[in-house]
């Protein structure tokens, strides 16, 4: 028994040392084989590193699931201007807490991944944009980066190879939208964290107007293992299209919530019933949000069919996202949960695009009214119609994230809403 909960079903590639505070120390990390992958990578051509990652089939762990090696290959091969690698450590999606743990327990694994990634895309500077509220994590990261510099793994002439890669840890100021890749860039440049229109894409015009690649913490944390063991090795887990392992952060009404590293394609119901010890108090499963609060929720029936990989989630009408599994049992106040999420998005909307700025706050107000028993059935139609206007009409997908839980909950759990509406009407009549 260790790190809050562990399970025999786990395959612990990147989470192996979770719960071991000595692993933060660079000496321990190196003793356990750390920075060997960096050494190996620096002996290769940058493109060979990218090829290895391509071969692994690793897909971005931030939510979109774009193949990492292919993303890296978009960067110019002959740099005429500075390139930047950005590590998105602004983990803010409600229900998500995997990057925090990765940085907290194994900061050097991430730093090694960053250095290898930077080498592959010919960048000489890495920015780790870390969520502002992660005070402890920021301190751990800063210390780890300092140690990496001291030991010659970062900075000028890394390990005597002549390669120079600097790492800067940047502490955000607490805005969810800065986790959106272009919003992160605006913020890093010192502007308001506002997403930008794409195209141009970051590989052409990124941070400071230079070619940039942005990867999630978990993605970069996997990279040293792929370099060390080969792309083919990573494919022993997961499915053909979604290879490898993935951290699942499970929260909600399960007995053992926590981070579990499992092969992709793992059945959702097994995650809930076996790995997490089942629903609390012997209650019934009602709904699951498998990928963080911005993906559609599914009912128990679909949850039993769902396999946790990028394709399996789409099959049941949702998305894997960043694999933040939020489980609700039959006693959950679903409307309140949805309202709470929408409140969050309304608060975090950057305010640029009209559908998001106005729509998210409007949605929140209607939901609040329904929750308080002042809603009508027409409100549900209005919600369905207006959230439709928020899908695919804005610069980034925050707006879509408001629509997903609202639309999926109304279409799958309409009775929950109607119950509140009817009870309000009865109270009004009485």
């Amino acid at each position, binding site marked *: 028994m260790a790190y809050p909960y562990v399970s025999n079903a786990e395959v612990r590639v990147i989470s192996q040392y979770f719960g071991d505070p000595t692993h933060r120390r660079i000496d321990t990390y190196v003793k356990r084989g750390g920075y060997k992958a960096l050494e190996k990578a620096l002996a290769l051509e940058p493109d060979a590193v990218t090829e290895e990652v391509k071969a692994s089939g690793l897909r971005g762990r931030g939510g979109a699931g774009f193949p990492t090696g292919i993303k890296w290959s978009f960067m110019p091969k002959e740099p005429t201007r500075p390139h930047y690698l950005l590590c998105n450590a602004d983990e803010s999606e409600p229900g998500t807490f995997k990057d925090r743990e990765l940085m907290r327990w194994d900061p050097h694994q991430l730093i090694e991944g960053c250095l290898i990634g930077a080498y592959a895309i010919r960048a000489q500077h890495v920015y780790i944009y870390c969520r502002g509220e992660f005070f402890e994590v920021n301190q751990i990261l800063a210390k780890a980066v300092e140690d990496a510099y001291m030991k010659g793994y970062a900075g000028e002439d890394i390990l005597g190879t002549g390669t120079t890669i600097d790492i800067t840890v940047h502490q955000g100021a607490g805005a969810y939208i800065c986790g959106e890749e272009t919003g992160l860039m605006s913020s890093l440049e010192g502007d308001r964290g506002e997403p930008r229109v794409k195209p141009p894409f970051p590989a052409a015009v990124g941070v400071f107007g230079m070619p940039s690649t942005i990867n999630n913490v978990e993605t970069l944390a996997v990279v040293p293992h792929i370099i060390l063991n080969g792309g083919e090795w990573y494919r022993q887990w997961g499915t053909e299209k979604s290879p490898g392992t993935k951290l699942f952060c499970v929260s909600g009404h399960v007995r053992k919530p926590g981070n579990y590293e499992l092969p992709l394609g793992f059945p959702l119901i097994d995650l809930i019933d076996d790995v997490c010890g089942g629903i609390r108090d012997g209650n019934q499963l009602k709904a699951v949000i498998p990928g963080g609060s911005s993906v559609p929720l599914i009912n128990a029936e679909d949850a039993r069919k769902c396999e946790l990989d990028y394709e399996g989630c789409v099959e049941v009408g949702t998305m894997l996202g960043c694999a933040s599994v939020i489980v609700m049992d039959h006693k959950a106040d679903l409307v309140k949960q949805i309202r709470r999420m929408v409140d969050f998005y309304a608060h975090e909307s950057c*305010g*640029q695009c*009209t559908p998001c*700025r*106005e729509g998210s*706050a*409007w949605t929140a*107000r209607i939901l609040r009214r329904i929750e308080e028993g002042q809603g009508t059935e027409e409100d549900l139609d209005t919600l369905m119609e207006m959230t439709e206007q928020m899908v*695919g*009409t804005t610069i980034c997908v925050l707006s879509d994230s408001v629509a997903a839980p609202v639309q999926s909950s109304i279409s799958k759990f309409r009775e929950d809403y109607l119950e509140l509406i009817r009870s309000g009407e009865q109270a009004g009549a009485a």
Partner: protein
Amino acid sequence: MAELITLTIDGQEVSVPRGTTILEAAKKIGKLVPHYCYHPGMSSPAMCRLCLVEVEGAPKSMPSCVTTVMEDQVVHTDSQQAVGNREGVLEFYLVNHPLDCPICDMSGECDLQDYVHAEGRAHGRSEEPKRVFGRDDFGGDVLFYGDRCVMCTRCVRFMNEVEQDQRLTVVERGNRSVIDTFFEEGLEGTHWHGNIVDICPVGALVSKEFLYKARAWDLEHTPSICPSCSQGCNIELHTRDNLIQRIKPRENLEVNGWWMCDYGRHNQEWMNRGIRLSDPLVQTQDGVAEPMRWRDALDQLLQHLGVIGKVGVKALATPFASNEDLGALAELVGALGGGKMVYRSACSEEEIVLRGFPTLARRKDLAPNTSGAELIGFTRVGDDEAAGGLEDIAAHDGIVIIMGDELSDQAEDFGRDAQLFLYLGDQQSPAASNAHFVFPLTNFAEQEGSFTNIAGRVQRFSPALEPPGMARPGWFILGALLAELNNRDAPLNAAESFSGLASRIEAFAGLTYQDIGDRGAVLNETLVLSET
């Protein structure tokens, strides 16, 4: 010439240079895609989401303000998808907009009003209480009504990118976002901030000076040229009750883009001045100025000229006069045997350049037509306050003609020795008490004419106000006089007067009013340079 791209917009083929946006391409075929945040003079954040159009093959609607055209692209601005999007976005705008059109200065020329009337829902579905910001004084001439704001950020971008004096920003996030100033002084001390009122698509930014003065639909718009410096910004005079209520810039990329300075924008009081000369006055034997009909006054002047003969002329004109007025005066001086022709003009110490549009500046020379005056043969005298330099004219014993200059720095004995003292002006002047003839002129806003700006560009302005009584343009009065002297027909309009000028002054040769049009025409450059 950039490569041309051919695409189809709403079934119509159009060819535009590579790099053109869909929105601009649509303008070419007369389709205006509704938009707020886009402005051709600034960067486009594509955030209002109103200009989304359907592009065949694209996975979702595209913002037409930043999406550039592609060969064989098929675009629909009026499809179900595009119109549906606009209806949705417009409803979102009205969730918090106060709909206080009846007391809003922008009402009648508001893009939100127009678009909602055209394509919005008949009834909004929002029942929730609206968010309230209230009113804020931004300093300078600008008041901010936060509740009306559509968050297009044009004002912020104007200050950042065009004036390049960062005074405004967006504070807060989500639907709590609001435009604000950084410090107490706000826009105070900036020189171009009036433009943010123009580019605000709604009534969020309004002019303090114009506030509650007139409804937009009661204003008449007259194309004109700003008379406040030698830049010659293209403007519109907005009038009501025979008064200029406000001045707005008129787009002309060759001169002022979409902008004008605050100095020119608010320099209108003099055009509305009430106390005016309205009758021709002729000095009688006993020194009394007697009002007369034009016919009689001109007859007496001709008689007087016949008596004194060619005794040498000294003429002073104002560079606020049109090319036509100055040309007629120069011709008259010639017809009377020639002499000295001068003008006085006030100058400021420095130019105020609009950094984001550097060909536009509030010029040092604060008169609209010094270039025209120089080309027509007048030379500058006096100091930078447009004072002094008239000693020889004041004491001249031949013919003295003053046109437009109010002689405000001159003594009452000005022109006492003159055998003929003709004063043409729109105001009575104490220094004109010796004048034998005082003729009432229309002012700039009351007449048609043209100015030549600092770059040698001739631009036309039109009458926006009714002149008082018998006041007439200088070219008209002097044209009638010259017709008698030279025994020919007088010019009937400013265009004819200008053709006369073009036939006499080489710099203007070959130019007609038609050529000048409403965009202006540049004079032969070598001639302009050699003259100045």
